[in-house]
């Protein structure tokens, strides 16, 4: 038997071994379990970093019904366009991604912060610890922020990120993705996730994507190509709606 602990964060396993492990875990899916498995051994870095005891149910109280408010003055609208943050234009496929942030009851999450970060078109992050030998683009930082509008809508203009290798196992590659960070109307709705692109051939090979055992739940992380968002002679367009859990706050009169 493979010693999983010994192989944490090393590249001992082959893709075939990871595939077999992922298939074995998928067979253990239980109806109604949380969408994302925290205990997911094919993702080696999770081995020592997932709780082994059940999450303790709590009714949110006091400050857990509160959420930070990020004022208009703290976010520059230019931060929503990742292609204009430098003197020149970044290389790659210019794209727009837009969608709505809703809560589990279908209410828009209004005037709330959305943060994104991503690799460049070559699959390289502007992070000192990213050692992937792909070029850094001097005209692309790969981070953006915006506030949702009065209907919960966000829009970013960016460059389509490339896939990149990582050291989970031998010849491991992450499907192209954009990281998203979202806040709701209370503390309990916090969401950090990743948006993927339709039809990525790396989906079935990726233990982070596959840590969501229910295929319908996984597909909720995949944006849709939308020709109505695509702009003539300018950029391609993707649509991705995000649903947070339901708020525990009592809805206000003006929430609908």
């Amino acid at each position, binding site marked *: 038997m493979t010693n999983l602990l010994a192989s944490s964060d090393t590249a001992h396993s082959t893709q075939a071994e990871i595939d077999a492990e992922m298939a074995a875990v998928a067979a253990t899916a239980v109806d109604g379990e949380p969408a994302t498995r925290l205990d997911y051994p094919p993702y080696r870095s999770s081995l020592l970093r*997932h709780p082994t005891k059940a999450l303790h149910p709590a009714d949110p109280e006091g400050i857990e019904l509160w959420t930070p408010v990020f004022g208009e003055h703290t976010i520059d609208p230019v931060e929503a366009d990742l292609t204009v943050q430098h003197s020149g234009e970044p290389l790659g496929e210019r794209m727009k991604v837009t969608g709505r942030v809703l809560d589990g009851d279908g209410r828009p999450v209004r005037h709330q912060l959305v*943060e994104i970060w991503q690799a460049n078109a070559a699959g390289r992050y502007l992070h000192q610890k990213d050692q992937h030998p792909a070029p850094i683009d001097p005209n692309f930082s790969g981070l953006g922020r915006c506030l949702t509008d009065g209907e919960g809508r966000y829009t970013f203009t960016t460059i389509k990120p490339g896939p990149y290798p990582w050291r989970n196992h031998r010849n491991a590659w992450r499907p192209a993705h954009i990281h998203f960070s979202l806040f709701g109307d209370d503390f309990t709705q916090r969401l950090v996730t990743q948006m993927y692109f339709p039809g990525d051939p790396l989906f079935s090979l990726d233990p982070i994507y596959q840590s969501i055992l229910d295929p319908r739940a996984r597909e909720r992380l995949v944006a849709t190509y939308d020709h109505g968002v695509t702009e003539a002679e300018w950029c391609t367009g993707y649509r991705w709606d995000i649903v947070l859990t339901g708020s525990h706050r009592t809805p206000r009169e003006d929430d609908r």
Partner: protein
Amino acid sequence: MNTLAPTPGQTVGPFFSFALVREEGADLVSPSHPGAMTLHGRVLDGAGEPVPDALVELTRGGDADGWGRAATDDEGRYAFTTLAPSGPFFAITVLARGLLDRLFTRAYLPERSDDPFLQGIAEDRRATLVATPDERGYVFDIRLQGDDETVFLTFARD
């Protein structure tokens, strides 16, 4: 129940700090603010080793200065400058590479350890939710796994 199916979470990954972490982000108030204190601690894995790529978010509540975030350093340490929470506990979110979804927990002030919610937690795990006073303020270590694993919370609605 949610009427819409929520979007699943995914790990924050290793490369978040250039986007999410700002130097002033861990100071909810200025260190010179009356009543300012430090809430600090370490994030540790199941082997007791520091987690150097975790992100801790602190909610104190109350006003515009009621929230902050801090990345852990090479020793797994994080620190916030904050005022006391407007209630018996600080609300805390933990994210890290290797952690597939965010975790929620509470850091209770030691003088509020008679709180009914705490009393409902198994006695041998209760202490993981209580901050310890020190000369700088309070210490709150977060253990992701193991015998002394921190109690993490779920707020799922039925």
